[in-house]
């Protein structure tokens, strides 16, 4: 119920913001997200999993057995809170930089967050797909209208790529529902019911691949990642924050929630290939990031690299690794989101994203530099910050079942140090600049402070997140460890 109320609240606020326009829209946008975040936090703390507040089951398409079924467990709660928090950060940042057609901007922002909230709560596959698409379209509009110089090309590429993946996912969902009907005579798309009749063998493999393609494009797994650098670079800062902090999480979440539990044999068979793609993403993303001169594009490629880690964590078939992947989703949101805020702040002030035109900025903007230092340290995996806890868990968990992949992935840690420190150095260190750069204003400082604080807190105390994710992780791994030929 809480999820439905949240999405309705955000949709209503979106409509009001569009109609109100101008400065009122900014207040409505930020206010709605902060209120939603507070309400959700209270609700999830007060109502333990399994309670009425956390689930809902309403009829939707009786003829096809598709229901509006919601169930929020620990992982879902964490990601929903993350969605609202990232949305609030984006709204806070947008206050300073979006000056035209604000009503429409906040309409799209709030709708995208509403879609994300629904994605992390839905249990019925068809209902999940609705929110999957609702999450996507407003983001495309955000990029196309408020983005930078090649925004149209980036938005179209983003949309067509993601849509193609999603359509194969829809075909797989339809096939799964039809299979359930063939077995039981009733239509259903609900996860719990479809799980009992999910096919094995070749049909299962193909359906799982359909789901995998949809999720892999979103993650983004190498080689389906080519939409991401353009989309992240050309999006406005707030758009980049939401894109990196939120939309990418849907892919990994979908794998843990749907693809693995429904198709244990097929997932086990795909695991080596998926891990190869993950490692390839880690190494390729890191190397290409190092080669960038555009700061935002550099951060975009670090996203590819980090999400490669998450993919390895999911398919390592280890509880610790998968919990690490869940933690990485949260850590990456704050680290990369924060870096996009820094890049956006520099772009606003200097009029450029090019690292070769930056240098020595620390002298004039020490607070911005300090924030960038913390975020870069998080990105490279400094112990004490959240990314380290996540990546270490993934490597430790993956080493048992798949040592070769863990070793290869660990090389990514070295490469991430290379690109993070080199980018930081090129931007902030060197001969002091004298450009009259102004430091962060209170609004940006608050946003960056939240990111840094979250990374530090989760780095020192990641247990709550990993425990919250545990039920979903064991639900994903249980069918696999019970399946024949499973790893110990």
């Amino acid at each position, binding site marked *: 119920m809480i999820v439905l109320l949240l999405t309705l609240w955000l949709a209503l606020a979106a409509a009001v913001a569009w109609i109100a326009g101008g400065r009122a829209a900014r207040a409505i946008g930020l206010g709605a997200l902060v209120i939603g975040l507070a309400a959700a936090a209270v609700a999830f703390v007060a109502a333990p999993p399994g309670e009425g507040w956390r689930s809902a089951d309403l009829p939707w398409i009786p003829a096809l057995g598709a229901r509006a079924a919601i169930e929020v467990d620990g992982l879902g709660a964490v990601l929903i809170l993350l969605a609202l928090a990232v949305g609030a950060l984006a709204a806070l940042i947008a206050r300073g930089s979006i000056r035209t057609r604000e009503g429409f901007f906040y309409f799209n922002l709030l709708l995208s967050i509403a879609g994300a909230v629904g994605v992390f709560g839905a249990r019925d596959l068809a209902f999940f797909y609705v929110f999957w698409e609702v999450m996507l379209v407003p983001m495309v509009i955000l990029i196309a209208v408020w983005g930078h110089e090649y925004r149209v090309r980036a938005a179209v590429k983003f*949309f067509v790529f993601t849509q193609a993946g999603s359509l194969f996912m829809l075909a797989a969902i*339809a096939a799964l529902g039809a299979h359930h009907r063939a077995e039981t005579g009733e239509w259903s798309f609900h996860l719990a019911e479809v799980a009992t009749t999910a096919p094995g063998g070749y049909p299962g493999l193909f359906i799982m691949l359909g789901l995998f393609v949809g999720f892999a494009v979103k993650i983004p797994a190498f080689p389906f990642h080519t939409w991401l650098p353009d989309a992240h670079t050309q999006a406005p800062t707030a758009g980049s924050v939401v894109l990196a902090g939120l939309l990418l999480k849907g892919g990994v979440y979908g794998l843990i929630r749907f693809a693995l539990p429904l198709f244990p044999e097929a997932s086990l068979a795909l695991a080596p290939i998926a891990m190869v793609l993950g490692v390839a993403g880690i190494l390729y993303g890191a190397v290409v990031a190092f080669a960038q001169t555009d700061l935002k594009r550099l951060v975009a490629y670090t996203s590819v690299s980090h999400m490669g880690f998450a993919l390895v964590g999911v398919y390592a078939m280890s509880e610790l690794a998968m919990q690490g992947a869940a933690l990485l989703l949260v850590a990456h949101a704050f680290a990369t989101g924060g870096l996009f805020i820094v890049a956006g702040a520099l772009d606003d002030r200097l009029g450029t994203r090019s690292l070769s035109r930056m240098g020595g900025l620390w002298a004039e903007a020490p607070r911005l530099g300090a924030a960038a230092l913390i975020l870069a340290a998080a990105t490279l995996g400094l112990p004490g910050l959240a990314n380290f806890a996540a990546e270490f868990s993934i490597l430790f968990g993956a080493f048992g079942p798949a040592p070769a992949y863990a070793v290869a992935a660990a090389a990514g840690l070295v490469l991430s140090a290379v690109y993070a420190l080199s980018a930081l150095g090129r931007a902030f260190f060197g001969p002091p600049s004298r450009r009259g750069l102004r430091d962060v204003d209170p609004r940006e400082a608050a946003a960056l402070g939240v990111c840094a604080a979250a990374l530090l807190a989760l780095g020192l105390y990641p247990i709550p997140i990993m425990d919250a994710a545990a039920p979903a992780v064991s639900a994903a791994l249980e069918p696999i460890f019970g399946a024949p030929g499973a790893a110990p």
Partner: protein
Amino acid sequence: MTRSDVLAVTPLLILGATPLVVILAAAARRRHGAALAIALAGLALALAALPAAAGAAPAAAGALITVDGVALSFTALLIFGAAVAALLARPYLARATARPEEYYALLGIAVAAAAALASTQHLGGLFLAVEALSVALYGLIAYTRERPASLEAGLKYLLMTGAASAVLLFGAALVYADTGGLDYAAIAERAAGAESFGAPGAAGMALILVGLGFKLSLFPFHMWVADVYQGAPAPTAAALATISKAAVAAAALRLFADTGALAHPGLGTVVAAVAVATMIAGNLLALMQMRVKRLLAYSSMAHFGFALVAVIAAGPLGLEALLYYLAAYFLMALLAFGVVSALSSRAGDADDARAFQGLCWRSPLLGLCLALALLALIGIPPTAGFLAKLYILAAGADAARYGLVVAVAATTAIGAFYYLRLLVIALARPEAGAPDARPPTGTAVLLGVLAALLVALGAVPGLLDPLLAPASDALAR
């Protein structure tokens, strides 16, 4: 004929009488508003008569017309489409021509013929209804005869449809020669008795498919579609895309399902191949179009490729999927053509993509309507377009036609590109000095209602139940 037979046929009678009344009234005194009012009144009366007819169904009027629940569901949908087309035509014709009254008469004939096409279980009835529909459409397409493009479009349609009808008739003759029957039940009986169609019968069915395929713009009979849609006035293009195609699709479904033709292995394969080819060709051809009406023409071709999957799936789910798909498609297509019609001027239709630049900022209402129509055409939730796609995919998967399912998914992805391109043009900055695009109030209300229905139907598919009820009742019996 008993009293209940007459009751069942009443909607058809009302639909048939309406154009006569329109013509007589126009002959007495030409008034645009009166012609529209009479046409709408006729449509409303026919719609009101539907529940009574549903109670009396199934019933036959002679050998040619068989009114059952399925036919009545389609008739309701066709009446809705005709009403919207007539309302869209009102401001358009006021600008474009000095003699608009006959348009409503022709539209009335078209919808009556379309309803008859959905209500027939006889090859003779099929042919007559198709011919009547075509003749009405010749006039509707070439109506703005001062424009050479319209005349050319009308002539193209005349020649193509003439050829198609000849092929259809030849096919019907071959089927008769093989099975000795002209009504679907008799054909099914004879074909089942002889263990499916012999060579002449199968060839005849294929030729009938060719004839119907022309009107549905299936591959490879689609060559006319872009030119005719481009030349025709926008409300006629809307009627072509919705009423004409839906009626023929309904007739094709009933023909192939009720005669058991799809059970014939060769025919089944041919129909599936045509569906896949239509999806691919329609989407690829639309990709290359920069003119909006041509783009919508090929998009309509692609969409009926998708709808053909529901026809192939058959069965109760196939029928429900087809009805839902057509209802959703009616809303999308009428909305899209409605925006084109609202932007058109006396000189010509708003065909160039430049006319749409910055539409969202010049007229937020038209921009929103266009955006919703395009998103629905791609198949994005929460519009009805998404549910339509889900129904089609579910029906295809249920019938174990996985190749068709994958083809629908892959070609829809291609489609996303050209719809998005138009949406991005509408979101771009308007050209300096671009004309104000705000539509008149009546059009604005109509388009707003259509847009609201499109989203409402996507969120609550149960809204369509009153439309589907006669069909589901008929199938349950």
